């Protein structure tokens, strides 16, 4: 094997000076919830670790996760795909095609046995031998299982891979199932959202790369750094909720003054994500700021928890120190969330999840 460069060496060779490098690490450190104390450890890791091969598979999906990924503002996407990781297989970006592309996947699986990351965008249809998603003449289901077998860890990008998303909504015609219901005996990180925020995606990879361990996950397998609190808890419109000042109709007086969207069906009170703190597309805005209620796109079964414009029957807790582990069970869709939580917990504990395909 040829010499592998560390992230720091790559940055240096790209003309990024020490100061810029430190700045990047500091930002990352803050986003990962490590604060200033995490910085030295992160710097050390960046300076000594080689690039980890990543195989990025696409199943039943819409590619919104890939599109979100390439919007990352820090680090920039060129740094990620060319320097930070070795993105050796990705239907969306790879130069190679057909059997030459499949050869790359098999080569990495062999050469880096147990040392590559499997990233999955989308999920697998399980009905009828998997004929509803076929890649290279085989079912995506088989390709997924084969590629997962020797992966170090699995990242489930987006709500499709994490929880099932739109094709898994009732009546789920293709039998689409999220990754954790199909893969067992592997650590799985769920990064839900339709799509997830770009910097949440790159931050999750950076955490694994930097510390050589999975980020701490909550009961639904999500990194606590990004899914620890509800959108409602950090929403800048929260004072209007507490004051009982609500938008009643788009473009009414309340909408023009930026009041709370709870009565328009906002799912912020039951949705765990970083939208209201990190915001989207480099911190420009997020759905509530743009005047539309949150549709809860990072929660399990959110498509079946609607209609989107119907207000929640009750807001479960309003304290700002609550987290998903403590109150997830009382949120809307509690039963479904429980099933998913159980399955993910099992997967992480390397128990068999084979009998967990019920829906």
């Amino acid at each position: 094997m040829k010499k592998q460069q560390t992230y720091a060496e790559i940055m240096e060779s790209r003309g990024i000076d020490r100061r810029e490098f430190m700045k990047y690490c500091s930002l990352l450190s803050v986003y990962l919830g490590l604060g200033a104390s995490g910085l030295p450890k992160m710097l050390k890791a960046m300076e000594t670790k080689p690039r980890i091969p990543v195989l990025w598979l696409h199943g039943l999906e819409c590619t919104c996760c890939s599109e979100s990924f390439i919007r990352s503002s820090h680090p920039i996407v060129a740094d990620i795909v060319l320097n930070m990781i070795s993105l050796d297989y990705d239907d969306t970006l790879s130069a190679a095609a057909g059997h030459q592309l499949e050869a790359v996947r098999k080569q990495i699986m062999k050469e880096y046995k147990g040392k590559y990351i499997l990233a999955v965008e989308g999920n697998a249809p399980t009905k009828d031998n998997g004929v509803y998603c076929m890649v290279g003449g085989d079912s995506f289901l088989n390709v997924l299982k084969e590629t997962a077998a020797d992966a170090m860890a699995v990242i489930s990008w987006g709500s499709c891979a994490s929880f099932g998303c739109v094709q898994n909504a009732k009546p789920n015609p293709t039998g689409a199932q999220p990754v954790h219901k199909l893969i067992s005996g592997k650590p799985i990180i769920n990064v839900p959202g339709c799509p997830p925020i770009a910097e949440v995606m790159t931050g999750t990879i950076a955490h694994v790369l930097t510390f050589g361990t999975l980020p701490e996950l909550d009961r639904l397998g999500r990194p606590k750094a990004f899914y620890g609190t509800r959108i409602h808890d950090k929403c800048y419109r929260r004072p209007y909720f507490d004051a009982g000042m609500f938008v009643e109709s788009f473009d009414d007086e309340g909408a023009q003054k930026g009041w709370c969207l709870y009565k328009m069906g906002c799912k912020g009170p039951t949705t765990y994500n970083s939208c209201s703190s990190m915001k989207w597309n480099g911190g420009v805005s997020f759905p509530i700021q743009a005047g539309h209620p949150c549709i809860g796109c990072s929660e399990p079964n959110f498509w079946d928890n609607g209609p989107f414009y119907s207000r929640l029957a009750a807001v479960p807790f309003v304290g700002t120190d609550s987290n998903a582990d403590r109150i997830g069970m009382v949120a809307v869709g509690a039963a479904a969330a429980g099933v998913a939580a159980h399955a993910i917990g099992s997967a992480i504990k390397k128990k068999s999840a084979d009998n967990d395909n019920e829906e």
Partner: protein
Amino acid sequence: MAKRIVVDPIPRIEGHLRIETVLDDHNTIAEAYSSGTMWRGLELILKGRDPRDAWAFTQRICGVCTTVHAIASVRCVEDALGIKIPDNARIIRNLMNATQQTQDHLIHFYHLHALDWVDVVSALSADPKETSEIAQSISPWPKSSPGYFKDLKARLTTFVESGQLGIFTNGYWGHSAYKLPPAVNLLAVAHYLEALEFQKEIIKIHTIFGGKNPHPNYAVGGVATAIDPNADNVINIEKLSMIKKIIDDTNTFINQVYIPDLLAVAKFYKDWGSIGGGLGNYLAYGDFPETDIHDPGSFLWPRGAILNKDLSHVDEDVDPKDLSQIKEEIAHSWYTYDGKADGGLHPFEGQTNPKYTGPDLPYEYLDTDQKYSWLKTPRWKDNPMEVGPLARVLIAYVKGVDEIVDTVNFVLKDLDVPAAALFSTLGRTAARGIECKQTAGFMKHYYDQLIANVKKGDTKVYDSSMWDPERWPKEAKGFGFTEAPRGSLGHWIHIKDKKIEDYQIVVPSTWNASPRDGKGRSGAYEAALKGTPMADPEKPLEILRTVHSFDPCLACASHVMDMNGNEITTVKIV
């Protein structure tokens, strides 16, 4: 003996596509078969849901053209319920749509298509000084010094020498069909990276109005984002100034990077001006209304159809609501109609009963004499049609839209090729650039329109008159459409008792990537591939060039919808 070449997966597209070709003795493509290999069944998922939610479901058909299904969806619900949106909502939707097209085309050219023409490894032997001279001779773009390219070359060399080639692993580097000199390859690699960095800026306009991208939010009745120049929580001058800056920067990037690169690269591939033409039939529903979506005469992209490459005439009788004009066939698709394996239906009468009859998995080849795709086969007035940038540009060109006529003539003159060269793989790729320049201009146009309205005190963005389902008729039908980056997109809805009774979609890539029809006639991909000479069948670069020139979107294509409540039949693998 005939040789069969399979390319599966096709990379750098959206979704899952497989191409099988049969070569003749001279390694020229004699037959081509296009197969969509995924299906998600959203039609059954949408049935019975709130029509006001439909935009979010259909938007998830595609996260690349992540706004077009939402626009078509809110338009079809508004059409059904008789909602007339305020002028500002028209402007903002048009601005978001123009933003999408511009950003999508830029990503396509550099990140999905460029590697078919640009040899990354060849760039390693470039003379940075020569690259600099070329760059400065074609554009005033400031990042063009010898030092800039020298630095890039050094970084690229380090990257390749690391032994981890990442996304560039196993590309067809060194293939004899790559014609660019090393200096131009280095220039293209530089702009591949710059465009990757810049595309995320363009899309921030979606974040301002839709809260996020991908998948910004929409609303039936207008837009959700309020405007008040004297308030701090909504669209005010700060956000408007951000939009203006993005629009200006976007126009600069398109005009100083994309268009000069397109022309510079195209000059080395002029032989592709006579390869990959295909059907010669072009269709566009049109879009970007200046008045109202029901007034096609006001569309900046005009509606119409061209048949048999006839640039003297546009057929303006395009009516997607006319039951006789559009039919979807299933002769070679894994579906049945009323238990029968064949036939054609208008989307208003459509059915989607999946029935896989392909080979057992895993398979080496599909049985292309039988059914071989999850895509249906749409036909307009019984003609196979190509949709997309080339169709739109040709129709606008023939109809005499000033800016398009000027840009097309400029491109033809610069490349020194006749108008007939437009009917080709090169023409399709050039048309996308021409269109991108046009839609970047639209962005400015809509910004000016929005400012003019706000200036005169009009900040209304929403019509709430039909928001409450209690006010809806017991039953209503509507049609919504848009010109998506990849072509004409139509949504048909049937609302009954406040719920979705039936919802159908015909998407651009279904027109272009469809399998053969009942008469054995190919769709646009298959027709365009036929007759293509291949330098090395083991490395089918030429197939990628032509297929990518259409910008395939297979997650879209395999979601032809129908909600007649047909149960999914149990699929038996034969």
